[in-house]
């Protein structure tokens, strides 16, 4: 993986700076893991150290939208 994620604080950064935090799904369901646009948590480990939410197409790794976790529009 070498795509870019846009951190709301730090701007576009290499995905290697982030830790993946799983799919955002209603608790306590498990992730759908389907080839579609997924709603995910990411943690900017080597940056501002904050959690964000991203909409990513897992087929192409295109990140369509990012926002702070808990503040994203539904």
């Amino acid at each position, binding site marked *: 993986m*070498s795509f870019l994620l846009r951190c709301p604080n730090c701007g576009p950064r290499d*995905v290697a700076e982030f830790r993946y935090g799983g799919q955002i799904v209603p*608790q*306590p369901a498990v992730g759908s893991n389907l080839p579609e646009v997924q709603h995910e948590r990411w*943690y900017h480990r080597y940056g501002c150290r904050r*959690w964000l939410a991203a909409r990513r197409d897992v087929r192409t790794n295109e990140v369509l939208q990012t926002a702070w*976790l*808990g503040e994203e529009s539904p």
Partner: protein
Amino acid sequence: MTVPGTPPLPPGCFTDPARPLTFTFEGRTIPALEGQSIGAALYAAGVRIFSRSFKYHRPRGLFCVSGDCPNCLMQVDGRPNVRTCIEPARPGQVVMGQNAWPSLNFDMLRVFDAMSSFLPVGFYYKRFHKPRWLWPIFERVVRHIAGLGRIDVLGRPDLETEVEHLHAEVCVIGGGLTGMAAAAAAAEAGADVLLLERQPRLGGRLSEGDEDSPYLKKQVAALKTYSRIRVLCNTHGFGLYEGNVVGAFHERTLLKVRAGQIIVCTGSRERPFVFQNNDLPGIFLWRGVRRLADLYGVRAGGRAVVLTDNDEGILAAVGLRQLRIEVVALIDCRPSPGLRGSEAFAQFPGLKISRGVVLSARGSKHLKAVRIARENEDGTLDRASEQEIACDLLCMAGEPVPANELLLQGGMRFRHEGGRWGAERRVPGLWAAGGAAGTCRHAGQEGFLRGAEAAAALGYPSPSLDKYRGEWEARPALALGHSQAALSPQPQERDGKCFVCFCEDVTAKDVKQAVAEGFDHIETLKRYSTIGMGPCQGKMCGQNFSATCARLTGRDIGAVGTTTARPPAVPVELAVLAAERRHHPVRRTPLHHWHQAAGATWLDVGQWKRPESYGDPTAEVRTVRSGVGLIDVSTLGKIEVVGPDAAELLERIYINAWADLRVGRARYGVMCTEEGIVFDDGVAARLQARSASEGNHFYLTATTGNAEAVFQWLELWRTTWRLNAVVLNRTSAFAAMNLAGPRSREVLGRLTGLDLSPAAFPYLAAREAEVAGVPCRLLRIGFVGELGYEIHCSSTHGQHVWESILEAGADIGLKPFGVEAQRILRLEKGHLIVGQDTDALSSPLGAGLERMVKLSKPLFHGREALLRLKEMAPRARLVGFHLSEGATRRGENNWARELEGCQVVEQGRSVGRVTSARYSPTLAKYLGLAWIPAARATAGIEFLIRCDGADLTASVAPVPFYDPEGQRLKN
């Protein structure tokens, strides 16, 4: 093979004649010039056999002289599979052949050539299966023979590799005519350009032919006028990855280039011809002969036959004459008019051209002659025309095929039209130009255009874009490429071995058989026949493979397509790829240097260095049990949670209750994942109220290896639940030490004014007070099972506090103790260590932590899963055990550690495992913790542990083993 009287060639343009050197090859001393490749120097010294083929151990010589083919792989200074045709010679190098026994020149394993009918295509799916008892014998032989070079498994100390991250607006791969044009056009428009070239200098094919090419000089000079262009030579691009990242390496440095736009200008390479014995020393690609002479100053032979299917054949014949190599025949395998109709022929009318095909090459260790024949109009052979031509060099000048591996990796598609592959430009941010795009002529114009277009895509309008586009579109139409029939090899399959894939020794006959067996899709055919799976990864065979498959299945080459291209496009050493993993950060506690001076032996715990002991762990255990000891626990994760919702956050994260924890009290807590698996444990304290925090200030400790994960976990859920609290990771900010033992109160009392009486500072209380003049947080807890105080202070004062405590207790025998003693002490108490005694399947219900689970809480992590797990009841439990008397007489007490990880067996089947085991000096017994079936988890039941092939008897024992009532903790 030089014909006597022929003057030597001028030194190659990569070499420095003023700097001769020598290296050794199989014990022989070989002279070379600096810059000359090992392969060229060996060729000049008369070496003709460079390697032995993978399966049949055929002798092989230099072939492509560009690093693309597998023919020259050798062992250089212990490194296997070095492409010696391009690897520069260095003084004192030790070069050895590989995949041959006893030597390259005389290889006994050549016997496989005669046995080829027993090794048909896909033989590893067919042979050695029956009878089954024979396989172990075959396996030893096969494993010995298989593979090419030998890896030095003991490792070499010189694996110095680095990684560099580069950023460029435009990255141009390939510094030939096209690449230089693309770089210049992009820079002219205002973009920053990174130009990667695999050879030691720019120029690509312009370096060949005429050393002082005025055009090349002009181009290189033009590039130098742009400060925006950074040129990296000796740099090999091996992969294109998502996000427009180029993987490349420069010597032993891994380069990760993130580029806005990528322009691939990697040129083309010639297609080899397929005929009997077509991979024999003396048979070269024409451009290989050219490179050997022009770059390294070595002549490939004296009497040459040129075999061609395109107009480059003329240039080859003319070029050979320039090199003073006699051209005894120029064979054009196209139907009439072929070369005679070409523009080039008009310029060199004196050339004699024979029409026909090469049937076979003769020679056992080197080419002696080729047999040729004419083809009739209907494609059959005119047997009457067969003749043999003596020669020592065969130059194959086949139709150039795009060197497009990187483009295909990047998602670019190629269509086959008019006998040629052409790029379909559809991938955003990726451009193809020149030979790599399938452009044979006017590659420079295409380079300029793509460079300007790439810059325009970045928002740099190029003033010359329209001019470049006009020039490109006005280029003269190219004559059609060859029809599919001419492009397909027409090997005479019955006439022995016509190699399609040189790396894996796959012949045209093998491909035909594989297709007949039903593998008619190019991808399945590849996997079954192993074509294209060798070191060259299809660079030599790709086109012939597609063409052969097309002919055998009656389809068009375009419909057959090519196999999927994946990185790496060129061989990369694993050490280079692992460059980023070579550095391991080491964390040291604030007391590290004190431990070092005290002679501690070190234990690696995650990134941390911890003192394992200061000499005798058993004595350290006794000191703690009978007097008082001090251990550095600075590696514990230390996290502060402050705010109105702090208690709520803890309540939801830990499985036990927190809301009722009073100020000044501490509590042991366990966290679970959503799946109800133990994630971490530790102690948290509610610190004294200050005006700002109003008692909403918690101080958490986490397991050493889990500090960061616990912090991220708290931060994730604080954010998700929008709780009003702040989470801070203070792990490195605090030093921490544990003063433990019956006399610890006495020692601490000498350093603090705090009332330490059991009533004022009871078990599980938390206080803030000065110790040795330093503000500290004190927690009265007892991991090791004695009266004890965990003392946290700022890291800067850690050593002062540590030394002050040791000094205060010196007269009553206070000694430091290490992790090993601590592990024995905690095991005597039956305390588990998360990650050692638990794993990714351990729920608190089986791990003896049932009392911690507070299912009455409405919401906490793991609650749903734990409710379900509770209904099911655990299948396995973590229990304490003693080793039975008979099993314990094995000499040294220390051996018990070996039990950790051993299986618990029942009737020979594994039913559990030992997670901790030690000899307890306090109880004079072997103790441990083990996961065993829940049905057997009753005190007194015996079970077997398999260790070193012997079964030891153990019996389940209640925990804690030591001080079950906990009196010593609480007094």
